[in-house]
């Protein structure tokens, strides 16, 4: 294929084929209306290939991973570890740097707890002093986040600050929903130990300037933690290119199963970190008096792991790779541009976030003058259009924008321009129902 073909939206025929892989997209809702699913930012649907992979695991290889001497145990372990390798390849990582968690939230908490657990007596014994120092957090140290974070990348850092005495600071956002880059040099200082930020905002759609943030964090010796929930499903992500130290994402937003997420971390750091959850599987030697722990990633995977979900997530990575991430990005970008253009023609709708498609992902949040988002969402739902309403787990962001809530449409590779039109048509019902002048 010529280069241009690698980065263009899907053709009608290709879209139809993709949609054919997602059985749920052909169902109807609310009395026979075709489902128009524009809530993939909350969770995506799962293609047949992912469901088949999970079913095949259970039907042919089901066993407890890393236990047992029988053939099924071997096969299950192989399936689980092969899934890890596939996921690692998908994000440009080394296999042993990929930790399976139950979701992105757990991955972010795992990192946050590494800092406070590092303060326990003996927790960092044997760790290179230079690396250990990076996890030492206390009074006078600062944790930097941004005002656009999802609660999952906000509350764990508030709690870490509370446990350690460190101070939480944040980078502000502009009225059009971009980070206040002027804040970088003033908020990220020599006191900063952690900079945690989202790659792509789940509300605003903003794609953040990773290089600028990482450069500043490196200059002051802070570790970087990226929430990649809204980027890994939609953009080609390479952890080495990004230059961050940790990155977390969930499987269920990228066509994978619920109940699995990924924490990626640079191995040198993972190796230094004390465990988060403890128990079976994550140990090296256990005595009644105390225990030593396995090397990463096993150190962070206590208990029988979610092997079927890992296999399903690997199938989701393969599915996205087969579509081609540049094409997924281009396709969703075209949908985003179409929606932004349609909303711009409706002066009674205000987009919250960048008004054009530049450096923007496919989450489009908006407010309808004089109508509460719950009511907007209800009318859309009545037309078969599924969107998210509320604060989307980003309450401080909404407060910053002087809103309590918004309506959000978000895209995945299976959406079409016809669905954007369906959303706009349904939206046009809203002013009349609530007696708002347009």
């Amino acid at each position: 294929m010529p280069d241009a073909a690698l980065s263009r939206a899907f053709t009608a025929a290709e879209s139809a084929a993709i949609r054919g892989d997602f059985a749920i997209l052909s169902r109807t809702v609310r009395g026979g209306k075709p489902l128009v699913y524009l809530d993939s930012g909350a969770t995506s649907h799962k293609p047949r290939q992912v469901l088949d992979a999970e079913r095949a695991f259970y039907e042919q290889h089901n066993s407890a991973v890393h236990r047992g001497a029988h053939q099924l145990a071997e096969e299950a372990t192989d399936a689980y570890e092969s899934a890890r390798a596939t996921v690692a390849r998908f994000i440009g990582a080394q296999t042993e740097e990929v930790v399976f968690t139950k979701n992105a939230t757990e991955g972010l908490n795992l990192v946050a707890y590494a800092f406070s657990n590092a303060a326990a007596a003996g927790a960092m014994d044997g760790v290179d002093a230079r690396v250990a120092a990076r996890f030492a957090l206390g009074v006078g140290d600062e944790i930097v986040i941004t005002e656009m974070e999802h609660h999952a990348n906000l509350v764990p850092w508030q709690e870490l600050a509370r446990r350690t005495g460190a101070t939480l600071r944040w980078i502000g956002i502009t009225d059009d929903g971009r980070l206040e880059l002027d804040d970088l040099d003033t908020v990220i200082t020599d006191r900063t130990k952690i900079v945690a930020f989202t790659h792509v905002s789940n509300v605003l759609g903003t794609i953040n300037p990773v290089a600028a943030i990482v450069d500043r964090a490196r200059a002051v010796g802070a570790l970087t933690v990226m929430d990649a929930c809204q980027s890994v499903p939609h953009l080609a992500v390479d952890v080495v290119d990004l230059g961050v130290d940790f990155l977390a994402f969930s499987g269920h937003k990228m066509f994978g199963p619920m109940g699995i997420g990924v924490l990626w971390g640079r191995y040198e750091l993972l190796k230094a970190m004390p465990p988060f959850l403890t128990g079976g599987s994550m140990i090296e030697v256990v005595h009644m008096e105390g225990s030593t722990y396995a090397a990463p990633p096993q150190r962070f995977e206590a208990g029988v792991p979610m092997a079927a979900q890992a296999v399903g997530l690997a199938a989701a990575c393969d599915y996205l790779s087969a579509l081609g991430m540049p094409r997924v990005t281009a396709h969703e970008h075209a949908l985003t541009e179409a929606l932004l253009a349609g909303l711009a023609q409706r002066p009674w709708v205000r987009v919250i976030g960048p008004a054009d498609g530049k450096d923007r992902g496919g989450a489009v949040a908006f407010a309808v003058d004089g109508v509460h988002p719950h009511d907007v969402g209800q009318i859309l739902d009545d037309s078969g259009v599924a969107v998210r309403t509320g604060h989307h787990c980003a309450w401080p962001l909404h407060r910053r924008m002087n809103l309590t809530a918004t309506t959000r449409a978000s895209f995945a590779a299976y959406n079409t321009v016809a669905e954007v039109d369906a959303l706009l048509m349904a939206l046009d019902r809203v002013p009349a129902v609530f007696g708002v002048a347009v």
Partner: protein
Amino acid sequence: MNLYQEIILEHAKRPHHAGLRDPFDAQVHHINPTCGDEVTLRVHLVGEDGSAMITDLSYDAVGCSISIASTSVLADEVIGHSVEDALTSFSAMRRMLTSKGLDPGDEDEIGDGVAFVGVSKYPARIKCALLGWSAFTDALAQAGVDITRYAVRSNTVTRNTPEIT
């Protein structure tokens, strides 16, 4: 859809008895953590316990049309009534809202509240319709009324429910 009956939209646009007033015996602040909707609500009682008269219910609410309208109906239904009658109305309202459409509601008990019968078919909106009413029962309790005597359980109180991502 039969959710947004005209009477609901009327209440939402011009909520009755809105605004915070003095005097009051208790003030509560309830939120719906899923959407950030909030209500601050005051009650003023004269008399003791069940036979006490609700002489005023005032509120400041930010929310969707369902929650605003339902709080407006609440004020209509309880101001000038005894605590006992008001809690009977609460129970009737909640019974209808959680009936999945089976209970049409009784206008004698909940007045304009019967317009909310459509809400019972949309589970995600029941919390919206109960936000003000839950705040009201909490305010009564804080004003010293033993609401447990009237079989009012706090399972619909939204204040302490966990965040939903």
